[in-house]
């Protein structure tokens, strides 16, 4: 359980970081100097994304990993 969710967490964070970096690169590269909206949106996005990342990490750490049955325990309880 822990390993599966850790892999999922890392995969989502990596994909999100790549996508965010690509979008921010495009916004910085292709906006003309007088276009101000992009300059506001980029820090706003980074703040919100960081908050959500911290929330996700906090919930990940609050999961009671030790209380979950191991696959062997799960199979033994599920067997008739």
């Amino acid at each position, binding site marked *: 359980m822990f390993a599966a969710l850790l892999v999922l967490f890392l995969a989502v964070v990596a994909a999100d970081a790549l996508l965010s970096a690509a979008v921010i690169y495009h916004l910085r590269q292709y906006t*003309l100097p007088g276009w101000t909206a992009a300059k506001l*949106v980029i820090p706003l996005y980074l703040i919100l994304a960081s908050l959500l990342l911290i929330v996700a990490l906090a919930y*990940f750490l609050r999961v*009671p990993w030790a209380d979950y049955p191991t696959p062997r325990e799960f199979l033994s309880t599920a067997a008739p």
Partner: protein
Amino acid sequence: MIQLAPNETVRFVIRRHWFVYLGPVFVFLILFAVPPLIVRSGPRYLPLLSHPLVSPVVKFLLALYLLGFLAYVLLHWTKYYLDTWIITDQRLIDIEQHGLFHREISEFPLERVQNVTIEIPGFIATVLKFGNLKIQTASHGEFTITEVPNCYHAKELILKYSRVPRQTIPHEPEKKIMAG
């Protein structure tokens, strides 16, 4: 990055009218609001969601979902923001942002413009004052710009600068880029 000529000034920057994006915004609102509502009120109908072993995992997955959703919204907004038409006093630049890595830029000099037609397609376009601009040029055929807000102003500008001889256009370096 668009490079302007030394004596070129941006006169108007056009993005699609906000009305066109009402549909996607409505979908975004549903995608944003529904999963947290399910997590919040779901245990009433599905008690398993409030189980101490399940609840933290569900909340963790919800936080990951919102993180991805935020990036998706930024991606869509970027497509809207970078998809523009720029009218300078010398040319019209059409930047089409199809996707993040699919960008198409075309331009033609305004002196080649022969005719500009405005089409207001329906009641909502009439009320909200947006329409389609069809620009007939001598060399590039017909250009169509859809869902243009303030289309009468855009038409006037295009016609005005298409009829002004290049040498008589005043150079205003301090107004080089119009805010967008």
